[in-house]
């Protein structure tokens, strides 16, 4: 808990990018042994503030003091020397190098005939033990899981004797279990005297892990609370500036089966990616597939989008067996898709919003004629999506990479829903989105279901499944559990199903 003095002080920091004020007179204190959460929506200025603190950016005014000493602005090396370590959201690691190499690079005198790895190993082992951050020093970083890579990032800072650690959205890329483990570790580190700041927009994490919460909105500190003295509702309201209610599912009778897998398996590269899975998807209902990522969701997503062919078993789309699948045929059969990784599979970053909006339907006569693209129709279509789905941050001609994650997701959702699909495949639709965007995406998914679409929701977020799904099946190591009506599911039972214990869960 809160120990003695203030170890870090940000004083009246202001930073402008052009006309945008990213940080407006922000003052912040961090105490010894404290775990402070910096809460705010995307674009609230959290990351900018931390980048100023670490010296990646220079503030227009204000100062940073660490352990009583003023830090020179714009010098990451000075911040490192002062005992500040930063773990970026996008890891700064070299995948082809080993763990120990990533950690010791730059810590030794450059021109020596040997790098002293035995000493480095001993120090690393000592730090690993003290904080419970176990990782094989000789493993290639590219072979590690995301959670392990994050451990390497934290170890990098600790190896350099960091006493203040800043983590930028540390759980954005982690599974639920990894995230819980991480916060356990962070709490233990705080108890051992380190001081930590983590950036987050996930309310339950902030409440569960932090000692104190500072809420940023529009670049300003709007509130400061002790984690014990506040609630999810209060924080949500402070963060967004208004009340946001997650939409609620209404009861509906399911329609006919539109997609069906019967004992379907997919083997790729000699390993079974999906084994004997069976599910039925009805019109007007949402089937939730819950599971820790990496358990076959990616292959399942490929199967239902026409990107992978079943190795054995039967897979039917609208009552017809699928023999030679192709994404184009699936799209024209009325399947809308929200891919798991929107940057890799959902959008082409360098292309404009309207091009991304029409790309999957470019062959339809609506958007092309005689091999020529109908640009006007494409732009109009994009504008319709922008208006209807409240996509902010650009018009039809803006490159899509300039949109925030939430707005890009709304566009992807919009292009699928604008021409009401019969089936909507939503894979991790709200991963990395902030509270306001989550509510918007949920509302649209429910609206699609209300309009009679069948929704296949692949997610690892328990709350999301409980709020949206009518029935739920768990995916574990490429297998699917039998389906359970959502009325019979509670977090404990779902947890057991996700662990693969189906009989006990039943």
């Amino acid at each position, binding site marked *: 808990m809160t120990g003695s003095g203030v170890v870090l002080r940000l004083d009246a920091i202001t930073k402008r990018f052009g006309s945008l004020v990213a940080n407006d007179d922000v003052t912040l204190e961090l105490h010894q042994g404290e775990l402070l959460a910096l809460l705010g929506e995307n674009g609230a200025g959290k990351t900018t503030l931390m980048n100023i603190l670490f010296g990646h950016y220079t503030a227009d005014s204000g100062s940073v003091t660490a352990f009583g000493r003023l830090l020179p602005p714009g010098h990451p090396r000075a911040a490192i020397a002062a005992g500040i370590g930063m773990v970026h959201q996008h890891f700064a690691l070299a995948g*082809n190098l080993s763990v120990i190499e990533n950690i010791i690079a730059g810590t030794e005198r450059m021109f020596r005939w040997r790098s002293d790895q035995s000493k480095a190993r001993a120090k690393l082992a000592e730090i690993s033990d003290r904080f419970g951050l176990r990782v094989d020093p000789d493993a290639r970083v590219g072979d590690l899981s995301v959670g392990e890579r994050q451990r390497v990032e934290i170890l990098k800072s600790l190896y350099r004797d960091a006493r203040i650690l800043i983590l930028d959205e540390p759980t954005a890329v982690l599974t639920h279990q990894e995230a819980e483990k991480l916060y356990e570790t962070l709490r233990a580190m705080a108890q051992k005297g380190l001081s930590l700041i983590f950036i987050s927009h996930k309310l339950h994490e902030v409440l569960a892990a932090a000692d104190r919460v500072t809420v940023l909105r529009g670049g300003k500190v709007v509130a400061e609370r002790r984690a014990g003295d506040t609630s999810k509702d209060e924080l949500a309201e402070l963060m967004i500036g208004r009340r946001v209610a997650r939409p609620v599912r209404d009861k509906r009778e399911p329609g006919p089966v539109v997609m069906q897998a019967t004992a379907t398996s997919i083997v790729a590269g000699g390993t079974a990616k999906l084994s004997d899975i069976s599910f039925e998807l009805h019109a007007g209902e949402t089937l939730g597939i819950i599971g820790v990522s990496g358990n076959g969701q990616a292959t399942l997503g490929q199967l239902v989008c026409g990107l992978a062919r079943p190795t054995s078993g039967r897979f039917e789309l609208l009552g017809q067996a699928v023999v030679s699948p192709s994404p184009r045929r699936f799209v024209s059969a009325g399947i809308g898709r929200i891919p798991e990784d929107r940057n890799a599979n959902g959008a082409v970053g360098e292309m404009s919003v309207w091009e991304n909006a029409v790309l999957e339907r470019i062959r339809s006569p609506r958007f092309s004629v005689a091999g020529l693209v109908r640009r006007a129709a494409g732009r109009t279509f994009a504008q319709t999506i922008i208006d209807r789905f409240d996509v902010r941050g650009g018009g039809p001609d803006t490159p899509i990479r300039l949109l925030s994650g939430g707005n890009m997701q709304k566009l992807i959702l919009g292009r699928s829903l604008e021409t009401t699909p019969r089936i909507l495949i939503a894979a991790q639709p709200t991963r990395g989105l902030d509270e306001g965007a989550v509510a918007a995406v949920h509302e649209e998914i429910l609206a699609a279901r209300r309009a009679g679409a069948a929704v296949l929701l692949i997610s690892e977020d328990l709350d999301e499944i409980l709020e949206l799904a009518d029935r739920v099946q768990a995916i574990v190591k490429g297998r699917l559990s039998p389906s359970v009506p959502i009325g019979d599911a509670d977090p404990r039972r779902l947890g057991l199903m996700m662990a693969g214990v189906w009989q006990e869960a039943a």
Partner: protein
Amino acid sequence: MDALYIFASVGLWAAILRIATPLIFGTLGALMSERAGVLNLGIEGIMTFGAMIGWLTVYHGGDLWLGLLAAAVAGGVFGILHALLTVPLGLSQHVTGLGITLFASSLSYFIFRLCVPVSGTPPTIVPFQVLHIPGLSDLPFVGEAVFRQTAPTYLAVILALVLAYVLARTPLGLAIRLVGENPHAAESQGLDPIRIRIGAIIFGSSLMGLGGAFLTLSAFNSFFPTMVQGRGWVSIALVVFASWRPERALLGALLFALFDAYQLRLQQIVGKAVPYQVFLMIPYLMSIAALLVMARRARVPQALMQPFRRGER
């Protein structure tokens, strides 16, 4: 059967090391630069320039070693040019490199023509002589096949081993590798990716200059503008074949030289029945085949050809 007897001749084996030497220098040069994340297609031109400047230095009375030094320094100067354009300015590495090749090749011929009048027979110098290593050079067969080379050849082999060690075991080598894999990670570790990249390019370009100079100061004794003959491009391919590792670069260069030495001798046996151009293709065809096998497993430096800009992720 004669085609197999070639392998029993001492001449073949002695030729391999000689043919391999410029490739070893060239490949190591390209490799060091690529390990830091920068492709240097200026290699063909830099080798030509090195060949010219080395020869010219000796022709004007300089020592052979001074000739090598001049070639290394000239290579380094082109390296500075490539480095400035591709690292701080972040221009396309392909275009810059090809531009340097065109520029350096033409400039070589221009300077050569300025300094040496046109004549029917090209002027010559006295090149490096075989370095006799007591004991080793006198071994039967092996001595003649391996240990009767000129000094730069031994230098090339030793250099390959030293660089293999430096990359794998020293803090400097680790820094170079990290910059080539992820310059942002290097920066967050307090290293300066820009300085490391510039340094690696300049060093690599010096080696390319040395590779060129070997041609005029050891393999032949005169300069002509087309003498590099694609050795630079072969070096670029050998880097991939070597999976960006100096010790494998050495093996790759020797393998290519083996094909080359072999086809020369095969030509003599087969005679005029088959056009000689067919034989000239052999080493290149074999290289493509070898590349197909090796390149699939190669581990490319992840930041190769990606310009690094501070604060951009």
